[in-house]
């Protein structure tokens, strides 16, 4: 076992991690640990754009962007954070342009902008052109540009190092009113080197988590195989709460049956949704902005069309994305990649045929709670010094109960940068926290047990059962019965997980072992999502309870905070304690959400 010492350790090399590394790497001795090569992260799969009120093509301002973000999140957004994000969006885009990002341009040579769901002019009057983009591979260009700038600044990467545990100590501390509490402090992380199977301890003054989401909890998902909730899971096991985990975004336009994403940019460029009767059904659900309504509304409308028998195909289980009225040249210029996906994977020619689509699990709005400086909170307001989180793993909360399209590429840039700056600044004056005794013990025990297990359960079987039960019961529509069904199965699977064994017993590139460990995180995340969904007896944003179909501001205008707690029981689920946290309001009072 080797021990490394850095001022700052960043976990994850997607957009948020690399944006943090560019700042931190120039100010402090920084290492980036990443389970994938940096350019493999799922930021690269983002397609449509990154919103900022540049007003390059029509009137716009950051206050309108803030309002849209708050309304889009069904008022569960912390408004101070949304304001920071919308204001800093403009510099975030300019930073990327200066770093070299090849944006599409207007005829005058300025960064071009296009429409996107939920982004409007003057508080909902009409769709506005706010999304800066590079064809339909904006995420790819952001990821490449950030990696290029990491190379430029000689950022030190540890590629294919899986972080499996965080080293944390607790100290006795006193609040201003004299009450005692346990202050958590971070000492470093434990990582597993895929190439050798060796454990490496990284001691650090500052640790930044930027590990992305947990979409692989579901069967139908736009997420990569590697998005297994590792960072959220590690924090949760260390007693850090997870905020708003009931809110998962289902992106309306996944390729039917496959879940591969077709960008909302298609609808931004004029594509529309139709049911089996050829009807543009979004006219009924969102009369003003129709197909460009926010994702939760569109996804639910699609699922409802299918439920009421107006789905397409032999099983009537999807709807159609119609681009046939668009010029092929326009499609080629603005949407080349996604039209190729339709051709490659479904054999459908989007110039002439509508494309089968259905909602796909896309984004976890919840995550590790942070403040606007990306500092992680151990409860509603106590900062853990030196610990930061940014991107999908975090919950600032700028997305509330439903994220607007493009706001995640923005989130990773704005709060990734803030995390890098905060981490470097803290490390400049802080001391190292002493490593606990046997820092690798938890991880080495877990790995040895898995390698030596003679159990009969297979990882792939359990994972498939988990994903099936989540798709069937915790997707776009939920109610108490469906959530109960999911919880029963999750509990069974957790028991069976104890009896899992792996076939690869080697030390080199043992991905069999890593998939088994990742399944442990997935099971934890599925349980937290379902427990939080059970707790929220209302419908808001991406969380729709058929037994509680209305938003209930009186009882639920607050964030949920799920804690792992062996002594607690929530909604009949043992081991989870559910608390709540107030939503921060600055300028907007909740209104009914209509489009």
């Amino acid at each position, binding site marked *: 076992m080797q021990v490394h010492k850095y001022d700052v350790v960043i976990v994850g090399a997607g957009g948020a991690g690399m944006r943090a590394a560019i700042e931190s790497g120039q100010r402090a001795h920084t290492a980036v640990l990443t389970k994938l090569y940096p350019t493999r992260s799922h930021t690269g*799969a983002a397609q449509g754009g990154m919103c900022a009120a540049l007003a390059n093509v029509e009137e716009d301002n950051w206050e309108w962007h803030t309002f849209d973000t708050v309304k889009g999140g069904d008022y569960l957004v912390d408004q101070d954070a949304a304001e920071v994000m919308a204001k800093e969006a403009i510099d975030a885009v300019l930073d990327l342009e200066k770093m070299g990002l*090849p944006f599409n341009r*207007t005829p005058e040579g300025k*960064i071009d902008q296009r429409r996107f769901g939920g982004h409007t002019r003057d508080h909902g009057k009409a769709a506005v052109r706010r999304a800066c983009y590079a064809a339909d591979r904006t995420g*790819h260009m952001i990821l490449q540009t950030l990696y290029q700038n990491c190379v430029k600044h000689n950022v030190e990467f540890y590629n294919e190092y899986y972080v499996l545990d965080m080293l944390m100590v607790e100290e006795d501390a006193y609040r201003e009113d004299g009450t005692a509490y346990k202050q958590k402090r971070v000492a470093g992380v434990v990582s597993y080197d895929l190439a050798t199977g060796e454990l490496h301890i990284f001691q650090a003054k500052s640790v930044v988590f930027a590990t992305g989401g947990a979409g692989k909890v579901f069967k139908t998902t736009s997420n990569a195989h590697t998005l297994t909730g590792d960072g959220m899971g590690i924090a949760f096991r260390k007693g850090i709460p997870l905020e708003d985990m009931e809110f998962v975004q289902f992106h309306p336009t996944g390729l039917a049956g496959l879940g591969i994403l077709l960008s909302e940019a298609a609808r931004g460029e004029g594509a529309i949704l139709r049911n089996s009767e050829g009807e543009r059904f979004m006219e009924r659900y969102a009369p003003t902005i129709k197909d460009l309504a926010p994702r939760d509304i569109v996804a639910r409308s699609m699922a409802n069309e299918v439920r009421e028998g107006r789905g*397409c195909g032999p099983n009537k289980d999807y709807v159609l994305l119609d681009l046939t*009225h668009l010029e092929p040249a326009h499609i080629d210029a603005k949407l080349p990649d996604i039209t190729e996906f339709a051709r490659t994977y479904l054999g459908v020619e989007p110039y002439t045929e509508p494309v089968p689509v259905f909602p796909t699990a896309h984004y976890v709005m919840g995550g590790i709670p942070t403040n606007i400086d990306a500092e992680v909170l151990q409860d509603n307001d106590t900062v853990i010094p030196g610990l930061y989180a940014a991107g999908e793993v975090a919950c600032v909360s700028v997305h509330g109960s439903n994220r607007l399209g493009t706001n995640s590429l923005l989130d990773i840039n704005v709060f990734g940068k803030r995390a890098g700056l905060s981490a470097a600044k803290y490390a400049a004056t802080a001391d190292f926290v002493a490593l606990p005794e046997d820092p690798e013990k938890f991880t080495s025990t877990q790995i040895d047990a898995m390698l030596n297990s003679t159990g009969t359960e297979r990882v792939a079987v359990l994972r498939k059962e988990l994903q099936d039960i989540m798709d069937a019961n915790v997707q776009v529509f939920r109610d108490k019965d469906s959530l109960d069904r999911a919880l029963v199965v999750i509990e069974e699977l957790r028991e069976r997980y104890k009896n899992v064994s792996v076939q690869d017993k080697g030390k*080199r590139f043992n991905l069999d072992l890593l998939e088994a460990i990742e399944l442990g995180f997935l099971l934890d995340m599925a349980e937290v999502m379902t427990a939080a969904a059970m707790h929220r007896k209302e419908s808001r944003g991406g969380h729709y309870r058929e037994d509680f179909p209305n938003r209930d501001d009186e009882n639920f205008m607050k964030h949920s905070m799920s804690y792992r707690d062996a002594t607690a029981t929530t909604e009949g689920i043992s081991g989870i304690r559910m608390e709540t946290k107030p939503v921060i309001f600055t300028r907007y009072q909740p209104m009914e959400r209509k489009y």
Partner: protein
Amino acid sequence: MSTELPEPASKIELKPGVGGGGEIPTFNITLRVRRYTPESTADAYWEDFKLTMYGTDRVLDALHKVKWEHDGSLSFRRSCAHGVCGSDAMRINGRNRLACKTLLKDLDTSKPITVEAIKGLPLEKDLIVDMEPFFQSYREIMPFLINDGHEPSGERYQSAADHAKFEDTTKCILCAACTSSCPVFWTDGQYFGPAAIVNAHRFIFDSRDDAGDMRLEILNDKEGVWRCRTTFNCTEACPRGIQVTQAIAEVKQAILSRTV
């Protein structure tokens, strides 16, 4: 600038059977994988797996089926599974492709489908190679925008025509399918290889970049563009459809004329 479009019709007549669908056919394949497990066996060997697959399945699905249902030790990299992350470049029936973008039904399933690691990079285990030499070449061409002038307060302008000069080479996902398909690279690992040249092209022809001459000088080296024998393997291998050989030719031309 986005074009204004007339509102599409509220309702249209759909053609019968529109949107695809129907039963997804199944078929049997033999997946013949080149295994290398240095912890237990010194030499690489072929192993066959008989699988029943669906018409929409890709080579990656077949590999997953082996790993998840037959032999968990089969090792390969993959992440996004739809052709954008660049993890799963491999040699399929003798050609470099991404496993997640190669549909089984497009291959001849009457014969075994061979899958092996990409060539020219040190083999680590099964389909996994050491990517470090590949990324080393990439880093050497200074793959980042270099601009000596004053940093502008706002954005730099760039015309659509200038943007078009290098847009094709911005699509690179660093999967190494091109470089590891190049016969020159197989015999001379010092050669920069197509991917590094593609990424140099991306900056040399970017009107905002000032370091084109430096990059051209690097690629004018004996291990640079002149090693290219124009066999077009790279262009055929590129899963992103980048005109790799043409990009290399443009770099050669730029070195000769030094007008960039």
